[in-house]
């Protein structure tokens, strides 16, 4: 009985939506409301699957998919690479003050995602604080065009997603056995060697979990590229959004979503096998 209620919840709010997307990707866009027709639901067979042929023949979208994976990979790597030294630094803080410093790390996130990106706009735009400072110091005369660039987008991605990598890495590092590193040090290993041969391997699973926790949502990210990235930067999340809201081609948006899910299946399965 209770299991049936739970199953119904999942079927209605998780399973059915995914099936509808799959069906929609086989539909055709039409003028009118709603702006689609699905031959499969009308009992007319599979139809032509036009959206899929557009998707696979149009290099545009495949390129967007590839760029999304690349951006997600670099962002996730950046988050993990920043999380390790930050978490190790935090664990060197005396225990009495550690909670306060952890609070200092997490507090910026309470401002909310959109406002944090507004802060990056304020830092990086032509009349922004960084350009004002550089001009004030006499280092440059014309503002550097920093906003709407790959770099700005990456900064925003790492700023947006850092806690997803930081928290699992911190948890694994604080649970590790200090005796292992002590032993390595006694045997004469340098600090970098200890990190590479002891610390990193014993926390590798948490590092991988952190990487995937950033990588998967980042691959479909829409808001950050829209606010900070180059206007022409075509990414999967943006393509889906535009097909849906601007072009009103719902079948193509659905097919693009399925394609994005398809390339994320492997990392998702990896994530599900990673320990929490």
């Amino acid at each position: 009985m209770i299991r049936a209620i739970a199953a119904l919840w999942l079927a209605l709010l998780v399973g059915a939506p995914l099936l509808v997307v799959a069906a929609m990707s086989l539909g055709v866009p039409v003028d009118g409301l709603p702006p689609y027709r699905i031959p499969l639901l009308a009992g007319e067979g599979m139809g032509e699957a036009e959206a899929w042929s557009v998707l696979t023949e149009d290099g545009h979208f495949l390129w967007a998919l590839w760029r999304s994976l690349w951006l997600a990979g670099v962002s996730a790597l950046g988050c993990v690479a920043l999380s390790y030294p930050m978490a190790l630094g935090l664990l060197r803080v005396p225990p009495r003050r550690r909670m306060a410093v952890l609070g200092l790390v997490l507090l910026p996130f309470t401002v909310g995602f959109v406002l944090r990106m507004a802060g990056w706009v304020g830092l990086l735009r032509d009349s922004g604080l960084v350009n004002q400072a550089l001009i004030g110091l006499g280092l440059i005369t014309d503002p550097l065009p920093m906003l709407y660039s790959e770099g700005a987008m990456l900064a925003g991605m790492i700023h947006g997603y850092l806690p997803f990598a930081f928290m699992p890495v911190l948890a694994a590092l604080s649970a590790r056995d200090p005796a292992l590193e002590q032993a390595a040090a006694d045997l004469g290993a340098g600090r970098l060697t200890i990190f590479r041969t002891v610390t990193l391997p014993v926390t590798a699973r948490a590092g991988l979990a952190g990487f995937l926790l950033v990588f998967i949502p980042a691959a479909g990210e829409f808001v950050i590229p829209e606010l900070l990235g180059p206007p022409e930067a075509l990414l999967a999340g943006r393509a889906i959004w535009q097909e849906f809201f601007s072009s009103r081609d719902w079948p193509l948006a659905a097919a693009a979503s399925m394609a994005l899910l398809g390339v994320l299946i492997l990392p998702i399965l990896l994530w599900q096998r990673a320990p929490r």
Partner: protein
Amino acid sequence: MTRLVLALGLVFLWAPVALLAGFAFSDARQPFLWGGFSLRWFQALARNERLLEAAFLSLSVAAGAATLAVLAGGVLGWVLARQGRFAGRPLFGALAAAPLVLPEVVTGLSLLLLFVVLEQFTGWPQGRGVATVLLAHASLGAAYVGVLVQARLAALGRVLEDAAADLGASPLAIFRTVTLPLILPSLAGGWGLAFLLSLDDVVLASFTGGPGATTLPVLLFSQLRMGPTPEANALAFILLAVAVPLGGLFCWWRGGK
């Protein structure tokens, strides 16, 4: 070396946020130009009815979605931890975890298409609005609550519940007097998490919300696309000013244990 990176990381994390909070007190109309000290943007914020309405809507949706998420997620977690193997269990587990790993645009699009198709066949929901956003957020929140409850129940084991059963308690009495009190911390934490997720979401709310259901993040996002505003700076300062004492209180509470 690691402490240097920690310091640099803190600068990276705080730079955009401190900028917002600092310039909240600037008199200039340009959001990031210093024009002398002034509280005018806080006054403007207090008079901005559109923004206040959106904020109130966001808080209500978040509270409703979190409550629904705790109810549904609690059941999900309990089934996953306590029902053992049953037919369809792998699919059940995969669907329970799916919202955690699906990219937001995919979840948003899929829920919206579900609502559209559902309306076509059943007449409900009539258009998109507060109810559809709330359901979308509850679906995401329930997945998080489910994971928390499942982990808590798995860590506790069945010993206490078995003991209660040996002493003759009915399944309902066991749930009420043993299981529920034990998972209450996870439910409370899950409620907070679902509340914050809902409060910070742009993508799901954009897909599943209609013109009458503009939440605060959606409004801020659409404004930011036109350019930053000094009122948003004032809002950022207020959020920090609320979070600092709450965080301090939490540290003190955790430190006491």
